[in-house]
């Protein structure tokens, strides 16, 4: 009786995904404890973030994909309206205007867009009766560019990048022609020298620093230099949990948030890094399977985009910490400290589970 109840309760939870997720989160808590200088307070606060995120995931997993499809447009419109509101009346913190003060609570509409964007585009392509044509892609690109432009203006490059990626994945999976992709890549490449010549010196300098942070060792480059030392000195097996000298001795900035991977890599070494890559690969693989098995255009595109966006998160973060990608503010999924990204991520995995577990209904209905 009880087990049946339990089974019903977890009916819409994908056991493979949840196992990998919980394991990753657990690893994250251990790293956070080390990175925060043995702060139980931080760990407890992160535990609360996880609890909230898991509840959100359960709720979303129990929603039918059709219902998700029906709220795609309102969610997108609301997101854009809130983003405009942010540019007009948003609170400025650390030089960026990202938060909207609603009196009771502050919200960050760009986070909402991370989910609303792929939903909107998936809805858009699902509604096409015919195979999508160039004009459809043009409209989709416009739908993508409006919120991205608003977020770039805040400025929040990291989020803008991730949302662009999530939108691009939908476009790609919906069948954006190879010729166009190739043509686009070539023309952007050809435009580069021209665009470069149009920039002011200080703008060029900022881009140069973004690409090669070591040019500004007192500013942006400091993070990268210290992070590569942390990673490199970890070696094959790592220095062991709580033993990372770079991390423990205050050399690493933002070591509980965007740069937590440096702490992980220093303490668990190459083996740890590969394990984490494996864990991420399993999550991605499962997501791709769910996408491949999905029955409707909407769920298919949405599942594919969510999975690849998750990949982008992880890759961009690890790439930036290890010094092969520019430093943009992107947290390491499920490991970095922070409630917002935890909830957003779990919400997207909730959608994956919903798509996977409501398949029969979709098939029969």
């Amino acid at each position, binding site marked *: 009786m009880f087990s049946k109840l339990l089974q019903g309760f977890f009916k819409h939870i994908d056991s493979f995904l949840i196992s990998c997720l919980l394991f990753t989160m657990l690893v994250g808590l251990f790293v956070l404890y080390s990175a925060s200088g043995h702060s139980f307070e931080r760990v407890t606060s992160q535990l609360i973030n996880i609890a909230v995120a898991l509840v959100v995931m359960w709720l979303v997993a129990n929603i039918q994909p059709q219902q998700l499809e029906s709220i795609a447009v309102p969610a997108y419109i609301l997101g854009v309206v809130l983003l405009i509101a942010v540019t007009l009346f948003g609170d400025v913190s*650390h*030089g960026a205007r990202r938060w909207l003060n609603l009196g009771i609570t502050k919200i960050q509409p760009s986070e909402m867009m991370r989910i609303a964007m792929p939903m909107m585009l998936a809805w858009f392509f699902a509604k*096409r*009766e*015919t*195979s999508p*044509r160039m004009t459809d892609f043009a409209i989709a690109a416009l739908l993508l560019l409006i919120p991205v432009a608003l977020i770039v203006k805040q400025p929040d490059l990291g989020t803008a990048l991730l949302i662009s990626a999530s939108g691009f*994945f939908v476009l*790609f*999976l919906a*069948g954006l022609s190879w010729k166009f992709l190739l043509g686009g890549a070539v023309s952007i490449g050809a435009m580069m020298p021209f665009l470069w010549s149009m920039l002011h010196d200080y703008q060029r300098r900022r881009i140069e620093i973004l690409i090669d942070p070591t040019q*500004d*060792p*007192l*500013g*942006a480059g*400091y993070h990268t*230099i*210290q992070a*590569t*030392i*942390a*990673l*490199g*000195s*970890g*070696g*094959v097996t790592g220095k062991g949990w709580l033993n990372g*000298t*770079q991390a423990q*001795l205050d*050399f690493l900035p933002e070591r509980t948030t965007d740069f937590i991977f440096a702490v992980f*890599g*220093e303490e668990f*070494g*190459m083996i740890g*890094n*590969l394990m984490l*890559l494996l864990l*991420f*690969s399993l999550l*991605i*693989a499962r997501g*791709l399977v769910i*996408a*491949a098995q999905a029955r409707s*255009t909407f769920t*298919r595109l949405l599942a*594919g985009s969510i999975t*690849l966006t998750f*990949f982008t998160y992880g*890759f961009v973060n*690890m*790439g930036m910490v*290890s*010094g*092969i990608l520019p430093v943009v503010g992107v947290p390491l999924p499920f490991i970095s400290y922070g409630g917002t990204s935890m909830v957003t991520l779990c919400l997207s995995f909730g959608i994956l589970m919903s798509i996977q577990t409501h398949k029969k209904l979709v098939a029969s209905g």
Partner: protein
Amino acid sequence: MKSRRELKNYQNEQHNFKLRLAVLGLLVLIAFSALTIRFYFLQIKRYDYYQTLAENNRISIVPITPNRGLISDRNGVVLAHNFFVYTLEITPSKVEDLDTTIAEIAKLVEISTVDMKRFNKQKDESHNFESIPLRTHLNEVEAAKFAVNRYRFPGVELKSRLFRHYPLGKLGSHMVGYIGRINDKDIENLDEADLLSNYKGSDHIGKSGIEQSYESVLHGTTGFQQVEIDADGRAVRVLSSQPPTSGNNLILSVDSKLQEIAETAFGEHRGALVAIKPSTGEVLAFVSMPTFDPNLFVDGIDFDNWNALNNSLDKPLINRPLRGIYPPGSTFKPFSALAGLEAGVRKPPFSIYDNGYFTLPNSTHRYRDWKPGGHGNVDMRRAITISCDTFFYGLAMELGIVRLTNFVRHFGFGQKSGVDISGEIAGLLPTPEWKMRRYKQPWYMGETVIAGIGQGYTLVTPMQLAQATAILANKGVAMRPRLVSAITNAKTGATSLTKPIVNEKIPLDEKNLEIVKLGMIDVTLPGGTAASVGINAGYSIAAKTGTAQVVGIKQNEKYNAKLIDERHRDHALFIAYAPAEEPKIALAVIVENGGHGGSAAGPIARKVMDYYLLGKLPAVEVPAESTIVTKPNEHAPVAPIKPIVNAPEEEHFD
């Protein structure tokens, strides 16, 4: 009919989708492989290198602070420079018992109570991980003594730092300004401007005057060294470095000798003087009395000195030329006169018969002239010379407040001059709309009448008054006033002059200008209100005196300077330009509670002009006041005004 578009082929679509999914899967694989290769490179191939950096030695980025640019006057006299001093600094978070540590240090080097007070004040104001100076200016012996005992004091460091020094001390301190320690607010501003990384290693930032407004020019670019440090945090080896670029040097248009003469001339009086070269807008002297010693602020000012400066009734910290606001009084009359002439309301040979007062039509209220009984026949030129109130009451009434303010606004009244020091106040040029907004009351004709003689709501800063005079001297061509005349690039040594900027060219009739000028020249000739100022000058001076009330005088009351508290006495104002035919200097002087403009402010102006035009130094002993001194009492019976000596907040004036 067949649709031109093909309907979706679901079989086909799914196939395509899976193909594309596979492509993306491959992308994931490639990306993760790239990461793996990177991990291999960092963690296996270069493991030894990073291991060494992280374990035995630690890498540190040490900023190298650039030398701050120098400030000198037009003749090369240095007003602000840097020199190296030894300082003893403590990082509170690294010290276990602060009191004991300081007591132990005091056995080696002298720590005065002033040092302690300053240290405690700074400790309260900064974070405990910041390094705070305990003693500055250690001599060689003291430095050596501490260096030997260094091992006993973790968290205490002997540093060799560049210190800012203002060799002329109190002279022109409001103009040069000072630097001070960077506080949280500064950090926020720097962060917003994206300049924070350039201030790693900088402890100081311009806080006022030129030091503040030219911060970006003076600071320079911070260099850095990538060094290996040992467990004690000492640099062992330099891995790479980039030298800093020194800040650029500034050359001011001010003549420090002129400045000194002007400041000395004020004696014990409070007040301000601004002298401008009319043809270029270069500021020649910028006086705010009393002054203060900016060197007090560089090390961080101690409580006693701060309280003394901040609580002084004389308000020495206020930048009077830019932030002191005063009613212009009769110095406003030349501008009213020109407004009347340009509008055609007064045309020579127009004259009035002044019997000592003016009344508005249908009113019995008497707007009195400062001279009981009046001046008799007065034309425009004479009205300026003898400062006839009655003449200007009528002029203002016929001109109306709107035409009056619209005209004089071109001379900079009611707006910032745009001088290159920040913090300037716009003053106030009242209009009916302003009064409605501010007091919710209509404008009264009587207020127009007194506005004609610079009374009522009108408020000016000394800078504005000097600027208006310079524009008058320059025949309507308004040059933007500026203090910095050239910038020398510290790296190349190349000096670039700052370009004079024409704010506006006011179209004025040459004949009208001539009338005003003649009236103003007569002011310093026998019979004028400042006849004493012009005696034996050797050049012609166009001037106007003024008096601004501090307390309102009732309709039937008489002003008696002797019976009034010194601080309630009138402010003395004086504007002038010389030589009148070809003006080289224009100035405005305000002596707070100085009484009459001609006798209190005029002599200061004369000394400044004598030196600037003739190179003549003022006599050490001031000769007794000459015989022909008219001491007119220029009071207009006015509607209640609240003259504000030292501006509180700008918003106050709307």
